[in-house]
C-alpha cells in the first residue's frame, strides 16, 4: 500500500503552497500529491487565456517534473480521490488503490455549480474549470457563431469577452442587476457593462434563465421575461461549489465547504483543508466563508502546510480578504476588501472621472475596502492596510487623494 507522511490531495494553488511550507520545516518527510488532473499543476485562473489562445496549454504549468524530484514529493496525476477513512487514515482512489497518510491535506478546490434550470441537463453545455474544459471550449468556439453565457461572474465575463473577441455574437444572462456581484459596486459595474456593450456583447442583467432547450445543434435559453436567447454553444458559469463529495461519510465536518479553524484544521484529527474547498474565517465578518480566490488559497495552503509540519509558532489566521484583479478588454478593475460596502459605519468616498473610477471605503478612519476601474493600485499594500487596521489619522486626506503614494510610504516606514 502506498503511503506518505504528508498526503496532499489536489495540485493547485493551495496544495502547492502547502508543499512549499512543509518543505521549509521538514526537508525529507515522505510526501505525495494526488490529483484528478492528468497534467502537471496549472491554475484554473489561467484558463480564459488558454481558451483565447493567448496561452498554450503546455506553457501554463506551474511546476515541472524536476520540481517534484527536487522537493522529494511523489506527483500522482490522474488519481481521483473517492473516499476518506479518517480512522484508518486511508484515502481510496477511483481505481480502488488506497493511500495511507499520517497527515492529510484536502485541497480539492471547487467545481462549477450547475443550477437546477429545467432542461439544462439534457442539452450539451460547457463549463470552465479544467484545462480540458478550456481546450474543448476553444475548439467549439471555432465552430460557433453565437454563444450564450449563464452568469456574469469572473468566469462568465472572461469567457464572454474571449468569445466576442473571437467574433461570436454573445449574450450573457445574469440574475443580479450588475456584473461581478459581490466584488464590485454598481458604479464600477456600469463602466464594465458599457465596455461589454460597446464590444457588442448583450448583457441581460436581472434576468433568470427559466428553461433550456436543444435547438438543432445549439440551445435556446428562455429568460424570466419570456425571451428566448439562442446560441450555437452554451457556457454555464453561475458559480462554483467546493469539491467535497469524496468526503461523504468521512465524518469531516462540512457546511458549504470543509469547515476549518484558524490553522486550517478540520474536525478530523490530522486532516487539514485549504483553498476553494475550505470554509475558513472571513476577515471582515468574522464568520466562516468560502472566498474562492487564489490569494486565500495560497494563504490557507501555507498555514496548513506549516501546521502539518508541526510549526508551533504560527500566528492564528486573521481571515481571508476578498481580492479581485480583473481585466476587461485590457482595462483593469481592481478591488480589495469590502469594496462595495455601504450604510452605517462606513465612510464611502467615490471619485468619478471620465477616464477612471475610484471608490474607497473607510470605517473608523481605517481602510476597509477599495475598488478602482482604469486606475490600478498596489493591491497588496491596500490588503496590508486593511488587515493591520492602520489608522490613517491625519493622513486620511492625502490617502484619499493618492492611495498609492501614501500606501507605499506607510509600508516603507513599517518595513524599515
Amino acid at each position, binding site marked *: 500500500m502506498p503511503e506518505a507522511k504528508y498526503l496532499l490531495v489536489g495540485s493547485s*494553488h493551495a496544495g*502547492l*503552497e502547502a508543499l*512549499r511550507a512543509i518543505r521549509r520545516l521538514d526537508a525529507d518527510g515522505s510526501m505525495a500529491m494526488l490529483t484528478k488532473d492528468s497534467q502537471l499543476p496549472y*491554475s*484554473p*485562473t*489561467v484558463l480564459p*487565456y488558454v481558451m483565447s489562445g*493567448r*496561452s498554450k496549454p503546455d*506553457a*501554463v*504549468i*506551474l511546476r515541472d517534473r524536476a520540481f517534484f524530484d527536487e522537493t522529494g514529493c511523489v506527483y500522482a496525476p490522474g488519481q481521483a480521490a473517492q473516499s476518506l477513512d479518517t480512522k484508518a487514515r486511508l484515502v481510496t482512489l477511483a481505481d480502488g488503490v488506497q493511500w495511507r497518510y499520517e497527515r492529510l491535506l484536502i485541497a480539492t478546490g471547487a467545481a462549477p455549480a450547475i443550477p437546477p434550470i429545467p432542461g439544462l441537463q439534457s442539452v450539451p453545455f460547457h463549463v470552465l474549470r479544467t484545462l480540458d474544459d478550456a481546450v474543448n471550449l476553444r475548439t467549439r468556439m471555432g465552430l460557433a457563431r453565437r454563444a450564450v453565457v449563464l452568469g456574469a461572474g469572473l468566469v462568465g465575463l472572461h469567457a464572454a469577452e474571449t468569445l466576442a473577441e473571437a467574433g461570436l455574437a454573445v449574450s450573457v444572462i445574469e440574475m443580479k442587476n450588475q456584473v461581478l456581484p459581490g466584488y464590485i459596486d454598481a458604479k464600477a459595474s456600469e463602466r464594465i457593462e458599457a465596455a461589454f456593450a460597446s464590444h457588442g456583447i448583450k448583457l441581460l442583467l436581472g434576468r433568470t434563465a427559466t428553461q433550456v432547450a436543444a435547438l438543432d445543434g445549439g440551445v435556446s435559453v428562455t429568460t424570466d421575461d419570456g425571451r428566448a436567447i439562442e446560441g450555437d454553444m452554451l457556457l454555464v458559469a453561475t458559480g462554483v461549489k467546493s469539491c467535497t463529495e469524496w468526503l461523504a461519510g468521512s465524518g469531516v465536518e462540512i457546511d458549504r465547504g470543509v469547515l476549518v479553524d484558524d490553522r486550517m484544521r478540520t474536525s478530523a484529527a490530522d486532516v487539514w483543508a485549504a483553498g476553494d474547498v475550505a470554509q475558513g474565517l472571513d476577515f471582515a465578518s468574522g464568520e466562516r466563508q468560502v472566498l474562492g480566490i*487564489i*490569494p486565500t488559497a*495560497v494563504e490557507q495552503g501555507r498555514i496548513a502546510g506549516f501546521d502539518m509540519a508541526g510549526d508551533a509558532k504560527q500566528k492564528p489566521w486573521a481571515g481571508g480578504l476578498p*481580492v479581485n*484583479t*480583473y*481585466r476587461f478588454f*485590457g482595462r*483593469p478593475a*481592481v478591488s*480589495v476588501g469590502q469594496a462595495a460596502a455601504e450604510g452605517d459605519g462606513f465612510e464611502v468616498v467615490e471619485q468619478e472621472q471620465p477616464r477612471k473610477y475610484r471608490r474607497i471605503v473607510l470605517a473608523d478612519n481605517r481602510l476597509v475596502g477599495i475598488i478602482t476601474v482604469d486606475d*490600478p*493600485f*498596489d*493591491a*497588496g*499594500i491596500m*490588503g*496590508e492596510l486593511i488587515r493591520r487596521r492602520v489608522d490613517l489619522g491625519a493622513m486620511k486626506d492625502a490617502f484619499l487623494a493618492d492611495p*498609492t*503614494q*501614501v*500606501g*507605499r*510610504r506607510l*509600508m*516603507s*516606514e513599517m*518595513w*524599515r
Partner: protein
Amino acid sequence: MSIAFDTIAFRAPKCDGCGECMKACSAVKQGASRISIVPGASAGAFEMALCRQCGDPKCVMVCPAGALTKNGASGVIDWSADKCVDCLLCTSGCAYGAISADPVGGRVIKCDQCGGDPACVSACPSGALEWGGAGSIYNRFGEMEDMFVPGLAGCQGCNSELIMRHVMRRVGRNSVLATPPGCIPGMGSVGYNGKTGTKVPVFHPLLTNTASMLAGIRRYYDKVGRKDIVVMALAGDGGTVDCGFHAVSGAAERGEKILYVCVDNEGYMNTGMQRSGATPYGSWTSTTPVGDKLKGKTQDAKNMPMIMVAHRAAYVATASTAYMEELYDKLDRAIEASFKGFSYLHIYSPCPTGWRVASNKVIEACRMSVESNFVTLWEYTPEAGLRFTRSPDRPIPVVDYARTIGKYRHLDADQLAHIQAKVDEQVALLKRLAGEVATAPAALAAAPARTSTPDGAATPPLRHETFRP
C-alpha cells in the same frame, strides 16, 4: 551551503527626493520606473518602494500563469513577458508596492536589478541607494576554511568574533597569529588544555609586547626564506593604544613587515569594561562611572589610526563590519602591504555587553557610527596619501547614533554638543589630510574634556581643544 544574493539597499536618511533614480530606471527600462520614491512623514523625508526579490515571494505563489519565478542563480524574481497574462494578481501578493501595472501599456513591471549593475544606484547622487555586495561576500567567504574552533565563547552578538573569523578566512593557513590579552584570546582562540583554538600557530604575548614579538617572528621567517607567511596580530584597543603602544609605534617606525589588526571595542571589555585610551568622551565604563559627580569619561579618545599615519606606515585603514565589501578590500591591501612594511588595519567593533547594545543591534550601531561620522572610513599609504573610502558628507547627527548606545544614555546636551564638535573637528582634519577643502569647525562646545586627575579645585581647568588649520 546555501547561496546569498546581493541587493539594493535604501538609506532613507540620505535620500533628498531628487528623483534621479526614477529617471535613470525609466530611461533604462523604457517605461515607468521600477523604483518609486515617495514623500515621507515629515518635510524632506522620503520613502521607497522597490522589489526586494523576496526569498519567499508571494507574488510568485499567486501567479496563475507561471510567469514569475525566483531565479536560483541570481536571486532575482524573473518575469516572463510571454507567460504573463496581465491579470495583476501578483500586485495583490506584494506588500511593498514593488510590482505594479505600468500606466503606459498596462503590463506589470518590477525591478530586475539590471543584471547586477542597477542604473538607479549609479544615478543616486546622495548615497541613499547602495548596491550591497553582502550576498557575494557570503558566498565567497562562506566557502573558505574557517580558522577558529566552532563555538568561541564570545558574548551574544559579539562583533569581534565576526571580525576574527572573516579576517582569518581571508588570510588563510599561511600565517602566524598573535592575540594579546583581551576578548579575542579570552573567547577561546588561544585554546584550551594545550590545544590551540585556531588552525594556525597562535601566540598569546603580553599586552605590552605583541608588535615586538611579531617583529622577531617575521625577521626569522625572512631569514629562513619563508616570505609567504602573514605575520599578524588580532589585538584589542587596550593592547594597541595603551599598554602595547610603544611596541606598535616602534615596529611601525622600524617598518617591520607585520599585519596589525586592531579590533577596537573602545575599552578593556574582557576584564570588566574599564576605560582605555580609545574610549570616547562621555562613555560609561566601570572606571569612568556615572553618578552625581562623574558623568562618564572626561577625555576624548586618541585617534590611533591617525597616529599610525603620522608614522608613515606602509598601509593604514579604518573599517567597519557594517561595510564588509570595504573591509575585505582593505584587508586585501593590508595583507599585501604587510610584506613591504608595517600594515595597520583598525576595525571598529561595538561591544554589546560593555556598551549596552542589544545583541541584534550591533551591526546597526556600526552603521550609524559611520553614518554619523563618529567613525570615518578611510585608507592611507605614504605614496597616495589619505583618502576617504566613504564620503563623510551629509552625516546624520551624532546624537542619533549616541541614543542607540547604552553607555551614552546619561549624556546631557552639553556633552553631546562636545562629541559632535569633536567629530566635526576630526572630519575637518581628515579632510585636510585628504586634500579636500574643509572649513574650520566651530570651537569645541561646552563641557570640554578634562583631566581625570583631581587637582583639588572645585572646577577642573578647561582644556581648550580648538582646531587651528
